């Protein structure tokens, strides 16, 4: 237990010192604020409060940003150590590989959670101050922060997986970029293409929604939209989310971090430094 904590504490020092924590928090804050102010115009026409509109915009933002920030910290976790030659040394100490990975994960997730909470929280507070907020929109904001952290956790673990499979940190960075592109952009484009081809056939009605929530990024989106009528109304994305049982998206987003971490752990076990 103390070993896990010392790894986590050391990783935290590194994140603070190389300014990753500061940069990530500032990036989150700036984007969230910009979207909140830019997105405040349509409030009157749909009849929801400004915080709801802000949460809707930030949901769209988080789909792109949370995986990106997560991969940016995690791709280096194993490949970087291997490249420096410090991995063999670290592994010659009594700490187990699972302990090492979990320690890094805890620190990285805490940093990500900090950046998300500050960024979305501040933007949400401003939106609430200027445009009013209700119990439902506050709930939506809390859900946004929580699910963004979960989405970050998925991509942290996927980053470790890529890092364990790569021979160098540069290769890991490249693979991470590919991973991001596939999960966040290409997967959706592929599904969109399939739906257009299929029209409103069986695929669109029964398979497509499941395929969509199988991707953690889409599960994140669906969860946030389906859970709040206001957000759904403001985003105009209702269709697909409503054909699925309510538990589908949350289940996917909760299972993904566990699955990805298990895969990363298995890949790390096979690394010979």
């Amino acid at each position, binding site marked *: 237990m103390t070993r896990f904590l*010392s790894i986590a504490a050391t990783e935290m020092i*590194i994140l603070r010192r190389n300014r990753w924590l500061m940069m990530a928090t500032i990036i989150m804050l700036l984007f969230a604020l910009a979207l909140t102010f830019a997105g405040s115009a349509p409030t009157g026409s749909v009849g929801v409060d400004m915080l709801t509109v802000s949460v809707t915009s930030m949901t769209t933002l988080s789909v792109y940003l949370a995986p990106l920030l997560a991969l940016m910290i995690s791709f280096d976790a194993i490949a970087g150590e291997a490249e420096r*030659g*410090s991995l*063999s*040394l670290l592994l010659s*100490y009594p700490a187990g590989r699972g302990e090492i990975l979990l320690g890094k994960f805890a620190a990285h997730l805490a940093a990500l959670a900090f950046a998300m909470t500050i960024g979305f929280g501040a933007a949400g507070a401003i939106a609430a101050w200027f445009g009013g907020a209700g119990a439902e929109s506050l709930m939506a904001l809390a859900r946004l922060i929580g699910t963004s952290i979960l989405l970050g956790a998925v991509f942290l673990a996927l980053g470790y997986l890529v890092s364990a499979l790569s021979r160098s940190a540069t290769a890991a960075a490249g693979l991470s970029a590919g991973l991001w592109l596939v999960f966040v952009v290409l997967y959706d484009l592929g599904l969109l293409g399939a739906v257009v081809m299929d029209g409103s056939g069986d695929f669109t009605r029964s398979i497509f929604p499941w395929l969509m929530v199988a991707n953690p990024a889409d599960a994140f989106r669906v969860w946030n939209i389906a859970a709040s009528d206001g957000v759904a109304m403001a985003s105009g994305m209702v269709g697909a989310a409503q054909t699925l049982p309510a538990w589908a998206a949350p289940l996917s987003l909760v299972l993904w971090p566990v699955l990805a971490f298990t895969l990363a752990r298995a890949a790390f076990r096979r690394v*010979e*430094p």
Partner: protein
Amino acid sequence: MTDNALIIDNVRKDRGKTTVLHDVSLRVAPGERVALLGHNGAGKSTLIKTILGLTPLTAGQIRVGDAKPGSAVARRTTAYLPEAVSFHPALTGREQLRLFARLDGQKADVAGLLDRVGLGDAMDRRIGAYSKGMRQRLGLAQVLLGNPKVALLDEPTSGLDPISRQDLYAIIDELAANGTAVLIASHALTEVEARTDRIAILRKGVKVADDTLANLSAQAGLPTRLRIRATGEHADQIAEATGGTRMNGASVEILCPPDRKMEKLRHVAAMGDVVADIEMTPPRLEDLYRHYAKEGLQ
């Protein structure tokens, strides 16, 4: 029970189709300093990694004390200094060593250890600003954590200046004096010659020698080099009489096997004042190394 701290028995390691280690056996007793020599790619680092349990064996057995390599006990009692080690540049020396001490699971005098390896002034600076020698010293400091039973040092002096090397060997001597079995993989023959108790040589994954320097020289039977400086014009005469070769105007060089050395010397001494000086060079580790490491290649 044995009194060896490190036992390597008939270890074999295959990588794909090539065999990196062939049937290597080696023992290191507590307090013994053993040099592991070999060309690049001879299998030194691989052998060390198998001892650490980082690389699985194809066949054979390794015991660290009574523990299997890679087990919690073995990892706690083994210290390791990787070749050209580097650490995260954002951490300070003190933070890095504190992490290692905690991973080792014991209270350690982190500042004292850093002082001991000469990083007392730099311990709160970031490792990114350290020189290569300073990083190596930090690596050495973590070797000293928690009185290891076995220390594995991979090229510990690479990149160090002469003074730092002296310091390093002083620390290694101290480790050995406290009962640590030390295995040093190295290229720096002259240093190893003076600072180790036993020498093992690996050639293409095969152990070709494993003994004290004196015994290895005796077994190899390498010639001692006698260089005789003649007075005046007598060099030719000396060369003829001793069967040596003329080197330049006034010198003759003779290579003679160990058992005929005294005989030759008496012979030369009896030649009187045509001999101005004799210089005698016994075979050095470098010659021995060349002998053992190249033996099978011709």
